[in-house]
């Protein structure tokens, strides 16, 4: 689903990209990234269309990796989980760059 201009969130794709950048610089932990991304994705301004369904799917991929690691009492993500997170972040970045 691509949400349209009827949605008047105040967050811009650039804001979300900044959040991702903070995570990549180590200024934001994964739990914080998930919470902030969730809030920002659902508050995106739709001056330009954003593929909301795809963004939610990618967020879900990160959440599942985190949830699995947490359920197993891991202190860090496994290599496979981390790769999944990075792949999802790259996908999000691509969508947001196109929209910004």
């Amino acid at each position: 689903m691509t949400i349209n201009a009827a949605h008047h969130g105040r967050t811009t794709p650039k804001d979300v990209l900044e959040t991702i950048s903070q995570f990549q610089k180590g200024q934001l932990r994964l739990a914080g990234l998930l919470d902030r991304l969730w809030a920002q994705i659902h508050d995106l301004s739709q001056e330009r269309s954003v593929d909301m369904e795809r963004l939610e799917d990618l967020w879900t991929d990160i959440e599942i990796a985190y949830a699995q690691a947490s359920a197993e009492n891991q202190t860090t993500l496994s290599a496979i989980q981390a790769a999944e997170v990075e792949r999802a972040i790259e996908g999000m970045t691509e969508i947001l760059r196109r929209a910004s």
Partner: protein
Amino acid sequence: MAALSPAAMPDRNTLRALAQAAARGEAPFQSCIVSVGAHTRVRNGKQESVSAYTRANPDCGEESDGSWIAVQDRGSVPPGYGQRLPGPQDPVGRLRSPIEIDRGTNPPADIRGRPYSGHALDRMQGRGLSPSAVENAVRAENLVRSSRGANLYWDPVNRIMVVVDPRTNTVITAIPRSTAPRR
């Protein structure tokens, strides 16, 4: 070959075996270590280890810059000895360090016979989802996909997504979504 243990300094033969294993890519430090060795000396007619060292692959991350890492043998285990360095297969990513998992608020719990992870309970608490709403989503007809050890259920009426570990039937996360998850 036994993995390096921080409990004791390996002797020269062990170090040699480690170096040989490292050359074969079988060292316990995995491929980050490109060589392992020891400096020895003779005291009272007996050869003893003065220091042991490993050399790290420069591609293994910031902590291993390719310099020699001395492991001094002074009767105690030096800090970091026996600690595995991040390898190329490790989740260092752009951060060059492992991605950490925070301890959540809730402990795991069983609710009406269904195990929930602490993280799932945190999510449910944070987003106002009741266990009955979650349980209602976990139905065969709501199964969207099953991959990588996770069954993803989507309740299109209440618009709740629930992820279950199929090995243990544990709910590992539950979240409302504005769009249906991909199949």
